C-alpha cells in the first residue's frame, strides 16, 4: 500500500512539475523538427519520468526536460544513422544581412530599415527559416539563441566537441541571415498582406 501511495505521489509531483513546461517543450520540439513534434515530446516525457529521481532542483525542471528532449532527438538522428556531414562554407562567409539590406533597400520608405525587416517576421516565419537550415546548424542555433543554453551545455547535450559547436554556430548564423533574406524575397514578406 505504502509503495502504491509513494508511486502516486511521485507521479503527482511529476505531473505538477511537467504541466507548465509543456508549451516550452513543444515549442523547442517544433523548432528542431518539421513534423512529429508531439511524438518527440511524448518520448521525452517518458524518459523524464523514468529519470525523475535524478532531478535535484525543481526550479531547473524546464531546462532538465529540454535537455532530455534534445537527447531523445539526438538518439533519433543516430538511429536513422544519418552521418553528419559538415557542409562546404560556399560563399556564405562574406554574406552580411546588414549590408544586403542597405544595398537592396527593400523598404525604401523606412527610416529604421533593419528593425522593420526583422519586424516583418512572425514566429512561424522564423520557424520556417530555421527549418530550412541543415540540422547540424539549426540545432545549436536554436539551443543557443532561442532556448538560452551555453555552448558548453550544447556540446555536452549533442556529444560533440566544443570547437565543433562554435564552428557550427558561426556557420549557422551566416546561413540563418542568408536564409532570412531569401525567405523574405521568396514569400514577398515585405510586400505586405495583399501580395502574399
Amino acid at each position, binding site marked *: 500500500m505504502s509503495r502504491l501511495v509513494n508511486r502516486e505521489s511521485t507521479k503527482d509531483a*511529476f505531473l505538477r512539475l511537467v504541466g507548465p513546461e*509543456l*508549451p516550452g517543450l513543444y515549442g523547442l520540439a517544433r*523548432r528542431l523538427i518539421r513534423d512529429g513534434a508531439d511524438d518527440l515530446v511524448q518520448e521525452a*516525457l517518458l524518459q523524464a519520468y523514468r529519470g525523475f529521481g535524478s532531478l535535484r532542483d525543481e526550479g531547473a525542471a524546464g531546462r532538465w526536460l529540454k535537455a532530455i528532449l534534445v537527447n531523445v532527438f539526438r538518439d533519433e538522428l543516430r538511429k536513422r544513422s544519418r552521418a553528419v556531414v559538415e557542409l562546404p562554407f560556399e560563399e556564405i562567409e562574406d554574406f*552580411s544581412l*546588414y*549590408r544586403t539590406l542597405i544595398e537592396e533597400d527593400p523598404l525604401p520608405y523606412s527610416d529604421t530599415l533593419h528593425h522593420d525587416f526583422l519586424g516583418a517576421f512572425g*514566429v512561424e516565419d522564423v520557424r520556417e527559416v530555421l527549418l530550412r537550415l541543415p540540422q547540424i546548424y539549426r540545432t545549436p542555433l536554436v539551443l543557443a539563441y532561442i532556448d538560452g543554453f551555453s555552448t558548453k551545455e550544447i556540446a555536452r547535450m549533442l556529444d560533440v566537441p566544443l570547437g565543433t559547436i562554435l564552428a557550427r554556430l558561426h556557420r549557422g548564423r551566416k546561413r540563418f541571415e542568408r536564409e532570412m533574406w531569401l525567405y523574405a524575397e521568396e514569400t514577398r514578406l515585405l510586400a505586405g498582406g495583399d501580395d502574399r
Partner: protein
Amino acid sequence: MTRVQRLITCSEAVSKLWDYLDHAVTPRDQERVEAHLSFCRTCCGELEFAKELRTFLGSASAEEIPSDVRTRLEGFLEEL
C-alpha cells in the same frame, strides 16, 4: 614598449562580431575587433544589428501548445 596592433579588415571584424558578443573570442581578437569598431561606422552598424538579431531570435519562441496536442500529452501523462 607598446605592441603594434594589426588592424583587421571589415570582413574579418564582421566574421567575429557574434563571437565577440558571445564573449567567445580570444583577448587579442577582442582588442582587434574593438580597435576596428573604434573607427568603422559600418561595422558599428553591423554590431548593433547583430545585437538586435540576437534579441529578436531570443523572443522568437512560440511557447503555446494547441489544445488537441495538450490533451493528447496530458492523456499520455495520466497513463504513466
